């Protein structure tokens, strides 16, 4: 190595290191890639919140839909709720997974704040949540017409998340189906 180049070695090392560290600033260390992407929605046999009717996987798959994991104890879910209503008003099917919640509290929540969900799956024990790899509400899954999970968003779905991340995938899934 020419001696002149050797002089620049510390600078080169610094620039490379700074590049990596700068990238690290914008990474979320809590972001966990879902292990269920491109895998079918897990089988379940639970009840529907509205009338305690039996609900299975086959009852909720068949079209592109959002699956929203929520609970009344989850404060971010309250923040998210109005925007889910907006999406539902646009005709986007949203299934709720009422995660580790009390039925009466959940029902009261829907009566007071509005019900954007096509149906709510009651997951009191969190078994479906475990199968889905849920680690914190709210989480939103994009499931295609054949019941395969295509995307997971952890955290609140708002205008920005919807138009930047979820909507493009949603539209893509719709065109794939049609």
């Amino acid at each position, binding site marked *: 190595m020419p001696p002149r180049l050797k002089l620049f070695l510390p600078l080169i090392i610094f620039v490379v290191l700074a590049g990596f560290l700068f990238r690290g600033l914008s990474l979320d*260390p*809590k972001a*966990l*890639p*879902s*292990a*269920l992407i491109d895998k079918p929605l897990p089988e379940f046999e639970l009840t529907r919140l509205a009338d305690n009717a039996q609900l299975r996987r086959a009852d909720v798959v068949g079209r592109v839909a959002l699956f929203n994991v929520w609970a009344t104890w989850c404060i971010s879910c309250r923040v998210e709720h109005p925007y889910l209503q907006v999406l539902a008003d646009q005709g986007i099917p949203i299934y709720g997974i009422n995660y*580790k919640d009390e039925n009466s509290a959940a029902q009261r929540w829907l009566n007071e704040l509005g019900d954007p969900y096509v149906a709510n799956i009651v997951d009191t024990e*969190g078994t479906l*949540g*475990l*199968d*889905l*790899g*849920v*680690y*914190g509400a709210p989480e939103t899954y994009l499931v295609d017409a054949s019941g395969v999970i295509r995307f997971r968003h952890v955290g609140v779905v708002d205008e920005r998340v919807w138009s930047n991340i979820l909507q493009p995938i949603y539209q893509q899934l719709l065109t794939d189906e049609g």
Partner: protein
Amino acid sequence: MNRFPKLALLCICLSLCSSVFAVIETYSFSDTQLEQRYRRLSGELRCPKCQNQNIADSNAPIAQDLRKLLYEQLEAGASDEEILDDMVSRYGEFVRYRPRFGGVTLALWIAPVVLLLLGLSAVTLVLRASTKNSSTRSDALSDAEQAQLNALLSPDLSSDDNSNSGPGVQDKS
């Protein structure tokens, strides 16, 4: 003097707070072998929510659920391999503190070795360069250097004439 026993007592108390006591719920196993495997596996599985704790240490609801699941799987007679595979299928390789060798975790396993080798080769290169330099460089002065040294050490008479104008040493009479 009276303080020391209290301090020692505090230290002993603090040292007792190990992970074994952090678990809230207790499971009774049909076999002590299962209990040992439960301890080992719950120490090796990572809590997805509170990311730098294993599920044995964490009080997060998700960790409780995973402990329950682990207990049920152990009692159902699943092997360690099956349990870990099942956990990975839910949460990804992230959930294991000792991820499987291969695939996406390959970089994780190999990077330390590669970095160590890089470091070692850098050290050898530097050491070799410095020994090479010191062996070629002789301590004896060349003729030209010796002449220069002599000139510096011996007072030069010719330059003494204009010592008055020099900025350095001035004779005070």
